[in-house]
């Protein structure tokens, strides 16, 4: 990672990535994840995690309040559907821009501190947003129920062109409905663009400077280099990714709830990034995929389903296997997730990607380790 790859290599990365993402409905089918909603979630949380990684992975600044930007993106997008048009483009643009502005404000204040003080500042801002959105700001956010479309919404632009139908309108991209598979492909294209931008940032001089800040901010300061503007730019970019993800959530499913801003949601993206591998390009995406897969698929297994899965086993054995596995699925899916976090971080330091790389180097190049050659470690440490 320390040497900028050639443009050719970059292009190959993007090409492979594009094919892999667009073919998700095919290669995810065997594990039961190939249905529109989960595919959309993979793409959307992938964007969220990639953006988060631009801040955390490159600069080492751990924000515990990124869910606030996700929420702002969602609320803005739904308001755009309510007031202007059901077309998703303006919604996504407004959502991203407003989240960016919000990030400028919060980032400007929070970046005055570093380390854990920075984390707590971002957490505090996000929690204030969440608590207010849940209660006092109900006229804007519709509180606990969440902001939804209604029949009475003005939709100024739409109403100029078409008569309102009997039911609630759907979100569209110039007439193409954004639910189901078209919604996924829309998110997938945005994800690919987002990934490409992230790749560019990682390999740019700007990205290098951010990494330099991470490795030693004080020294950067001594050389007369003002780090704060760079940090702020990174913070705002990652906030905009979060806003983009939030507005895509609203675009594929026009609802925005306050709990999207809660600290657990901020914590989730932190976990996704660490699980996949902080500072690696593809890691956060993998982490997002794993967590969302567990949340949606493992939670849906009940004893009935388990009996079907293990039907091939002899009956007494089947019952025993079902009894044991049922502890880890259905209402026990949290247990599996917690165990997974521990196992991965214990056995694969630095997350899935970094762990895989270490395994690879262990198998392929044992001599390199013997000579004490240290590979670039994209992890943080105070």
């Amino acid at each position, binding site marked *: 990672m320390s040497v900028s790859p050639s443009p050719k290599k970059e292009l190959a990365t993007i090409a492979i990535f594009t094919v892999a993402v667009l073919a998700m409905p095919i290669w995810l089918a065997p594990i039961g994840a190939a249905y529109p909603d989960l595919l959309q979630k993979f793409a959307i949380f992938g964007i969220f995690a990639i953006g988060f990684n631009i801040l955390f992975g490159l600069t080492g600044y751990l924000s515990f309040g990124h869910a606030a930007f996700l929420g702002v993106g969602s609320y803005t997008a739904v308001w755009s559907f309510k007031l202007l048009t059901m077309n998703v483009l303006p919604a996504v643009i407004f959502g991203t821009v407003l989240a960016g502005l919000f990030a400028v404000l919060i980032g400007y204040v929070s970046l005055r501190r570093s380390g854990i003080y920075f984390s707590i500042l971002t957490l505090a801002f996000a929690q204030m947003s969440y608590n207010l959105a849940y209660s006092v700001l109900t006229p804007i956010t519709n509180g606990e*129920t969440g902001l939804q479309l209604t029949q009475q919404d003005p939709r100024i632009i739409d109403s100029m062109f078409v008569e309102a139908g009997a039911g609630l309108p759907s979100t569209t991209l110039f007439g193409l409905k954004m639910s189901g598979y078209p919604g996924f492909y829309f998110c997938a294209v945005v994800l690919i663009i987002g990934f490409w931008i992230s790749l560019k940032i990682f390999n740019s001089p700007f990205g290098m400077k951010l990494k330099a800040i991470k490795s030693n901010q004080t020294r950067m300061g001594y050389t007369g280099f003002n780090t704060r503007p760079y940090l702020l730019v990174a913070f705002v970019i990652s906030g905009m990714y979060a806003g983009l993800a939030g507005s895509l959530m609203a675009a594929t*499913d026009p609802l925005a709830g306050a709990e999207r801003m809660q600290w657990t949601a901020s914590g989730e993206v932190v976990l996704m990034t660490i699980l996949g591998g902080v500072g690696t390009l593809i890691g956060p995406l993998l982490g997002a995929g794993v967590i969302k897969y567990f949340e949606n698929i493992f939670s849906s297994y009940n004893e009935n389903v388990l009996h079907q899965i293990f039907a091939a086993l002899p009956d007494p054995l089947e019952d025993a296997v079902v009894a044991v596995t049922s502890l880890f699925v259905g209402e026990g899916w949290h247990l599996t997730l917690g165990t997974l976090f521990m196992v991965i971080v214990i056995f694969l330091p630095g997350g899935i990607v970094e762990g895989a790389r270490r395994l690879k180097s262990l198998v392929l190049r044992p001599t390199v380790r013997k000579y004490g050659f240290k590979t670039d470690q994209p992890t943080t440490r105070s």
Partner: protein
Amino acid sequence: MTKRIIPVTRRGVLKGGSALAGAAALAPTIFVRGAWAEDFRNNPGSAGSVKLGFNVPQTGPYADEGADELRAYLLAVKHLNGEGDGGMLNTMTPKSLKGNGILGKKVEYVTGDTQTKSDAARASAKRMIEKDGVLMVTGGSSSGVAIAVQGLCQEMGIIFMAGLTHSNDTTGKDKRRYGFRHFFNAYMSGAALGPVLEKEYGKERRAYHLTADYTWGWTQEESMRKFTEGFGWETVAAVKTPVGAGDFSQYITPVLNSGADVLVLNHYGKDMINSLTQAVQFGLRDKQVNGKQFEIVVPLFSRLMAQGAGDAIKGILGSTNWNWSLQDEGSKAFVKSFGQEYGAPPSMAAHTCYVQTLLYANACEMAGTFYPPEVIKALEGFKFDGMGNGPTEYRAADHQCFKDVLVVRGNENPSSQFDLLKVVQQTPRSQVEYDPAIFGGELGPYKV
């Protein structure tokens, strides 16, 4: 992996125009009993079974309530398929169900975790609809979730039978054509509780409200104030408390010297357990104010919550949708089969979920099809009896069930570990009815 029936996804796939569209277009167009040429999402066609989606909280604070709901659903599936003792199938009138599944198709089910979060609940419901091909989604343990999933089901053209949701909004300003609620609501709680409070505590009382600061809490406070102020109570103060505050001491101490002699706790779940426990610790129930005994009122009660609050609940008045000690034939039949199956009586959440499943199945039989607009029409205005709470009607105008409401009191001297609530009065349906226009909202179209 669950088995998947390919024709099920036909419409969704066509709409999507995905890579699979070519293959799916080969799927036969299916006519339901030849009567309706219209196709609809997740049409079971000639398949031998239908799937229902049970979406309940399996993690988070309401996990126990969710587990009980799930037990009720599994029991309902059993009874619909003609297994077990039949439960309320024996008492329900009028009944079109035959105990051979729904319209001759075996009932299967999928489950999911709402986490009591709107986003997770919608994701789970979408999985059921898009991947598992369910015909109906049901469940939930909070109004936020119910309203979110109900909105989704309207968009997707899938019927939603709400579980436990008590906010006026579910069948008020956020009502939907595809959403149905059997559970009662905050307005009905106030209407039922009001006269009992008047009788027990008199006309001259000064009430202090502590209200959970979100939509359900507000509607609950509003209806309690409307009815208590209606017969002369004065509201001293109404204070909003953050959800999940944990320690409520800073809200309770001002009650001590406010001159109020009744405390109304518009809280539910853990908030209610904590605020009630702490209010009792502050000695509120031992106080004499204005020459009267100080009283605490909890508008919405459930047995599971009563368990959590322990002794604090004793003697406290509140309302509930249903209680297992009811002696009508329907309740007795349900409690019997539930108790024999699981070794414990059902909670009110379990009751409403069980009844909802039967009502949906029955409506399909009445309509003679699974085609949602026809099923909805069969449910709208449906009058039935024998399912607890006496004669009940699914009002067509807002999809709210109207039935008797129970006013209960925390049992001072329980005869068993389940005997926590004592029914004080079964408030007749006529007393809790209201004009659907007062909450506004629109149901929306039959066809989506």
